[in-house]
């Protein structure tokens, strides 16, 4: 049986050291070892995007990353999005725009939207739909989500103006 490994990473700005087996995914390590349960498991095969986190600045499906691959990486999860008790523009827009029902997909959509707005501060509807195509929502449908992203982009633009 493979031995556990020590993995050292930066998660939401803090250094974390944890033990994991090679067969554990980053998603499993985040949730089961580190207690960061904001990141959700959906399909566990890279189709739904519910487990999206940022790894070294790129959005990834954490179900398709081995936890041992996170050695030395800089990770950002949904827990690192809000500033204290203040939701950021994307979180607020999803809340205000009722862009969720059951909420399982929401952390993934928010993480993916954060990456989108970092790359493209003023995305068109088509660009939003393309960038979010790796995230599935099975209850709300996508119109409210797209509108929430547009709203978040506008608010962030206004805040930075």
């Amino acid at each position, binding site marked *: 049986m493979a031995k556990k490994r020590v993995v050292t990473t930066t998660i939401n700005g803090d250094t974390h050291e944890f033990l994991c087996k090679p067969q554990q995914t980053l998603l499993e390590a985040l949730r089961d070892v580190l207690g960061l349960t904001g990141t959700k498991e959906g399909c566990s095969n890279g189709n739904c995007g519910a487990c*999206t986190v940022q790894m070294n600045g790129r*959005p990834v499906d954490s179900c*398709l990353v081995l936890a041992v*691959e996170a050695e030395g990486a800089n990770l950002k999860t949904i827990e690192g999005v809000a500033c204290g008790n203040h939701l950021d523009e994307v979180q607020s827009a999803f809340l205000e725009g009722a862009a969720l029902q059951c909420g399982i997909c929401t952390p993934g959509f928010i993480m993916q939207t954060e990456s989108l707005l970092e790359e493209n501060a003023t995305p068109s509807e088509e660009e939003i739909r*393309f960038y979010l195509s790796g995230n599935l929502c099975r209850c709300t449908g996508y119109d409210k989500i797209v509108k929430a992203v547009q709203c978040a982009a506008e608010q962030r633009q206004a805040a930075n103006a």
Partner: protein
Amino acid sequence: MRDFEYEAPTALSAAIELLAQANGSAKPLAGGTDLIDHVRTGRLEPDLLVDVKKIDELNVLELNGDGLRLGAAVPCYRIYGTPEISQQYAALTDSCRIIGGIQIQSRASVGGNLCNSGPAADSTPSLIVLGGVCVIAGPNGTREVPVEDFCIAPGKNVLEAGELLVEVKFPARAANSGSHYRRFIPRNEMDIAVVSVGASVVLDESKENFVSARIALGAVAATPLFAQAAGDALAGQPVNEESIAKAAAAAKEIATPITDMRGTAEYRTHLVGVLIERVINAAVSQARGEAICYKPGH
């Protein structure tokens, strides 16, 4: 998931040694977007995963006067994030933009796509039409194989036990050349090709005649197909509907698709013709410096 060991060597020689010693029970891990899923579902049962992302040779992404060197572990986003590659090797970046969603593109490598050797692999037709050559390292040294000879059956390729795909290298692009790749899917994105076509064309000075062309097809045979006769049919011909129709007819001749949930064999053969016309026209537009009527996912 199955219990396995994990190693992440930094030297190519160490990776080859680990793969060779494991006698077939080790798998190289690049982006892992297919591999990790296949291990989870039990389709693959490795005892060792050799993470190849820390090896310099597999991370090469170098464009110069001699051509393009693409390390086997380079993820899709780095490829389309390089504007010079999008401009000169457009078919390659067309492929990289539609493999999975953005999260998948952060990790998935073209080398991994090729080594999985699926008949519908989105990057393989592009590698073929751009003249890609696989550089393979193994216990007995290094060898080179043209991409069109790499895949031999669904999920199977020419790699021997202990061998590793290091990079795919491409010749420099000719003047007045253009390339394009697209697939037909019933959705806008996140789907497997029903049929796909890649093409690369070289035009003469007037940009009204083909000097040469390479065409490749996906999802219409047991492996991605190099449609050599279809490309050769365009050589020396004027750029017009008649020439392109001849190439399409030649490509349909070699397509041997299956009927499955994605489409019937007859439908797929028809699509080969439709896509060849659109892809050749787009590649010609690119060679002429004209705007291309295409958006990824449409």
